C-alpha cells in the first residue's frame, strides 16, 4: 500500500514538474513600416479590353486578418475596367505568407503576383524565382513614376524585381498625459531633461489619486519605448543603420551610445522607464494604457484618435488627454524620432514561371498600373464615386457609406496611395495630428530598407547579438565598462565594420541619400 502511495505521489510530482517545464513564449516579429507621404504622378489611361475573356490573376498578400468577400465591388470594378478577374489569397502574418509562398515557389505553383519584403526579394531573386520587371516597366507608366520616387527599392543587383508599395507616413512617437502635466503646473517638455523630470514629478505625486504607487513613467512595446531617448542622443536602435551627413553608419560606434545606454539604465533603475518593456506585447501594453497607469507612452496617433481604439481607454480614464511630444532636444540631437522614409509596406513580385505567358503578364501590368493612379487608385482608396465618396471642387469627400462598406479597400492598394490625401479623407478628425507629425519635423534617418546583405554576413546572428548585448547593458546584466569589448566581438566575430562599410559604399552608389 505504502509503495503504491509513494508511486502515486511521484506521479503527481512528475506531472507538476512537467507542467513547470512548459514555459516559453513566442514572439512575433514586428515589421517596421514607417515612411513618408508623397503624391503619385501623372498617369496614362488604360486601353479597353472588352470583348475578350477575362484574365484570371491570383494575388497573394499579407492583410493582417482582413479578408474581403470574393467578388466585392472592388473586384467587380477591376473586372469591368481592365478585364482582370482578381482572386486574393490573404494571410494574417508574414510567417504564414512565407510558409505558403516558399512551398508554392518551390512547387512551381506560384501566385501570379505576390507580397514580399525587401529581404525576401534578395533571397527569391538569387534562387531564380522572380521575373525581372525592367523590360516591362514601360508598359506601366504609373508604376514607373512611383518607382522613380522610391529609387532602388525592389531591386537586387540593379535589377528591378518588384513593384513597390509606397511608404506610409511616420506616425509614432512619445505621447504624454497633458492633463497630469497641467495638474502639476508643468509646461510641455521640450528637452529630454525636462521630460524626465516632469515624468518623475508626476509619478511621485500619485496623479490618479488612488493612493497606490502604481503610476508608470514611460512605457511602450519593447525597444520602441526608449526610441525617442536614443534619438535624443543622436543614436538609433542597435541594429539600425543611419544616415549621418550623407554617410551610412552604425550608431553603436557613436561616442554618445554608451552615454545613452547609461542614461536609460539609470531611468530603468529609478523605475521611470517601465522595467517590463522588453516583455510587453502590444496587448499587455494596451492593458496598462487602458488602466490609466503610464505618464508617457510610445504609440501611434491611431491609438488616441481612432474612436474605436480610444473608447476603452476613455471609458476608464475620462479625463485623460494625450498629446504627442515632438522635437525633443537631447544631448545628441533635437529630433522627433527615428524614421525610415524608404520603409515600404510591401513589394509585389511576379514569379519567373510566368515568363512567356504574355496574356497573363499583360493582365498583371494592367492591374498594377490601374491601382497605381487615377480611377483605379481612387477605387482602392475610397470605393466607388457617388456611393462611397463624392468629388467636390476636386476634393474627395467621404459619404457615410465609406466607413461601413469600403473599409476593406486598402487590401487592394498594391502600390500604396496618396498618403496625406487618403488619411485626410478617411480620418478627417485626426488631420491636425497627422499633419503635425509630418511637416517641419526632423528625424534621424534610418536606411534599413536600402541595405543589401552580403552572403558572408551572418545577419540573424549578428543582429541578435547586438540586441541582446545592448539590452544587457541597459538592464545592468553586463557592466557598461565592457562596451568596447562588445564592439570588438562584434567586429571580430561578425565583421560588422566591414559590413557597414560595404553598405555605405553600396548606398552611396545608388544616390538615394542625395534626395
Amino acid at each position, binding site marked *: *500500500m505504502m509503495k503504491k502511495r509513494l508511486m502515486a505521489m511521484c506521479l503527481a510530482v512528475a506531472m507538476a514538474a512537467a507542467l513547470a517545464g512548459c514555459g516559453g513564449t513566442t514572439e512575433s516579429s514586428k515589421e517596421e513600416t514607417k515612411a513618408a507621404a508623397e503624391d503619385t504622378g501623372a498617369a496614362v489611361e488604360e486601353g479597353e479590353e472588352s470583348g475578350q475573356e477575362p484574365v484570371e490573376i491570383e494575388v497573394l498578400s499579407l492583410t493582417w*486578418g482582413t479578408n474581403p468577400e*470574393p467578388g466585392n465591388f472592388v473586384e467587380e470594378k477591376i473586372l469591368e475596367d481592365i478585364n482582370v478577374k482578381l482572386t486574393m489569397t490573404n494571410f494574417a*502574418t508574414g510567417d504564414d505568407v512565407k510558409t505558403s509562398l516558399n512551398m508554392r515557389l*518551390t*512547387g512551381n505553383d506560384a501566385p501570379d503576383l505576390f507580397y514580399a519584403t525587401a529581404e525576401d526579394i534578395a533571397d527569391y531573386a538569387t534562387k531564380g524565382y522572380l521575373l525581372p520587371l525592367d523590360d516591362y516597366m514601360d508598359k506601366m507608366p504609373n508604376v514607373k513614376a512611383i518607382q522613380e520616387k522610391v529609387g532602388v527599392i525592389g531591386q537586387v543587383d540593379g535589377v528591378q524585381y518588384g513593384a513597390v508599395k509606397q511608404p506610409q507616413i511616420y*506616425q509614432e512617437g512619445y505621447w504624454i498625459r497633458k492633463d497630469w502635466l497641467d495638474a502639476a503646473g508643468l509646461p510641455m517638455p521640450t528637452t529630454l531633461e525636462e521630460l524626465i523630470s516632469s515624468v518623475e514629478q508626476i509619478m511621485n505625486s500619485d496623479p490618479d489619486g488612488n493612493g497606490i504607487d502604481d503610476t508608470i513613467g514611460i512605457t511602450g512595446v519593447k525597444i520602441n519605448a526608449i526610441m525617442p531617448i536614443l534619438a535624443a542622443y543622436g543614436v538609433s536602435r542597435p541594429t539600425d543603420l543611419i544616415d549621418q551627413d550623407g554617410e551610412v553608419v552604425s550608431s553603436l560606434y557613436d561616442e554618445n551610445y554608451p552615454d545613452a545606454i547609461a542614461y536609460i539604465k539609470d531611468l530603468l533603475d529609478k523605475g521611470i522607464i517601465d522595467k517590463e518593456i522588453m516583455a510587453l506585447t502590444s496587448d*499587455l501594453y494596451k492593458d496598462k494604457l487602458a488602466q490609466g497607469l503610464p505618464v508617457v507612452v510610445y504609440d*501611434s496617433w491611431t491609438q488616441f484618435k481612432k474612436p474605436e481604439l480610444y473608447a476603452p481607454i476613455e471609458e476608464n480614464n475620462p479625463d485623460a488627454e494625450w498629446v504627442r511630444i515632438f522635437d525633443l532636444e537631447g544631448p545628441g540631437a533635437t529630433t522627433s524620432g527615428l524614421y525610415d522614409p524608404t520603409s515600404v509596406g510591401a513589394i509585389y513580385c511576379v514569379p519567373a514561371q510566368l515568363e512567356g505567358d504574355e496574356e497573363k503578364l499583360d493582365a498583371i501590368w494592367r492591374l498594377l498600373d490601374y491601382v497605381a493612379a487615377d480611377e483605379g487608385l481612387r477605387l482602392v482608396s475610397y470605393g466607388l464615386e457617388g456611393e462611397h465618396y463624392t468629388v467636390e471642387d476636386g476634393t474627395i469627400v467621404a459619404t457615410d457609406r465609406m466607413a461601413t462598406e469600403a473599409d476593406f479597400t486598402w487590401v487592394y492598394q498594391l502600390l500604396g496611395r496618396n498618403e496625406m490625401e487618403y488619411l485626410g479623407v478617411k480620418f478627417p478628425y485626426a488631420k491636425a495630428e497627422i499633419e503635425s507629425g509630418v511637416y517641419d519635423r526632423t528625424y534621424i534617418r534610418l536606411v534599413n530598407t536600402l541595405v543589401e546583405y552580403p552572403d558572408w554576413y551572418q545577419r540573424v546572428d549578428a543582429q541578435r547579438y547586438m540586441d541582446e548585448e545592448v539590452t544587457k547593458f541597459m538592464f545592468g546584466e553586463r557592466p557598461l565598462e565592457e562596451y568596447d569589448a562588445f564592439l570588438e566581438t562584434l567586429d571580430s566575430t561578425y565583421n560588422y565594420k566591414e559590413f557597414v562599410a560595404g553598405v555605405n559604399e553600396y548606398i552611396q552608389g545608388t544616390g538615394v541619400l542625395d534626395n
Partner: protein
Amino acid sequence: MVRSKHKITGERVLDWVIYLILFLLIIIFVVPLLYVLSASVTPYSELIRRGGFVIVPSELSFDAYKELFSTSLIGSAFKNTLFVTIAGTAINMVLSILFAYPLSKKSLPGVKFLTLMLVFTMMFNGGTIPTYFVVKDTGLLNSLWALIIPGAIAQYNVILLKNYFQSMPDELFEAATIDGAGAFRVLLSIAVPLAKPIIMTVMLLYMVGNWNVFYAGILYINSNELKPLQVVLREILMSSQNMLNNVDTHAPSLTMRMAAIVVTSVPIIMVYPFVQRYFIKGIMVGAVKG
C-alpha cells in the same frame, strides 16, 4: 479492505499530500481554461478596468461572440473543420481498419513485407515538398480533400489496431467461418465489435488530429472560405500583434480573441468525456501484445 479503515498514520499523511498536489494541479489546469471562458463573456470595458484578468464577470456579455461571427471567417471555418472532422475521421477509420485487419492475419501472404512497409513509411516519409507536389498533381490543392486524403492513414494508429486484432483468439474467427461467415462478415460482426475500445481510441486520435489541422491548411488552402478553424483562429490571435503601423485595421479585442479560442476548442473538448473510458484501455491492451 478492512485494513483501509485503519490506515497507519504514514499512509494517511501521504494520501493527503497526494490530494493536495493533485488539487493544486487541478487549479493550475482549470484556471486558464476558466479565464478564457470568463474573459469571452465579460464586457470589454470591464475586462480592461480589471486589468485584463476576470474569473467571475459582473455581467454577461455575448458581444464578443457576435463580433466574432460577424467580422471574421470563423463561421465558414467552423463548417470546413466540421466537414474535415466528420468526413475525414470516417475515411480514416474505414481505411485504417481495412488496412490493419488483414495485417493482423499471419496467414496473409507477404504480411511481413507489408508490415515492414508500414513501419518504414512511419520512419521515413516523403517530406513536405514532395508531398506538396503529390497534392498539387492530384488536383487536391485548394480543396478540403487536401486536408483529408494525404493523411488518411496514420501508421501508428494502424499498428495499434493491428495489435489489437492480433490479440483476439483465432478460434473466434474460425468458429465464425465454420458457421458460414465470409471475410467481411467476420470483420464486421466479430472483429470490429470486439475491438471497440481500440477503435474508439483511434477514432479520438484521428478526430482531434482532424479538428486541429493547421499546417496543411496553410500549405494547401488558398481561398478564405476554405480555411480551417485553426488557421482562422491563429489569424485572429496573431493579427492583434502586428498592426501598430496599419492605420486601416484594428486588432480584434481581447474578448473577441478569447471567444475565438472558446469556439475552436470547446467542441473537441466535449468529445473527450464520451470516449475517454475507452482511451487508456485501448492503448494499453493493444500495446502489450506485440
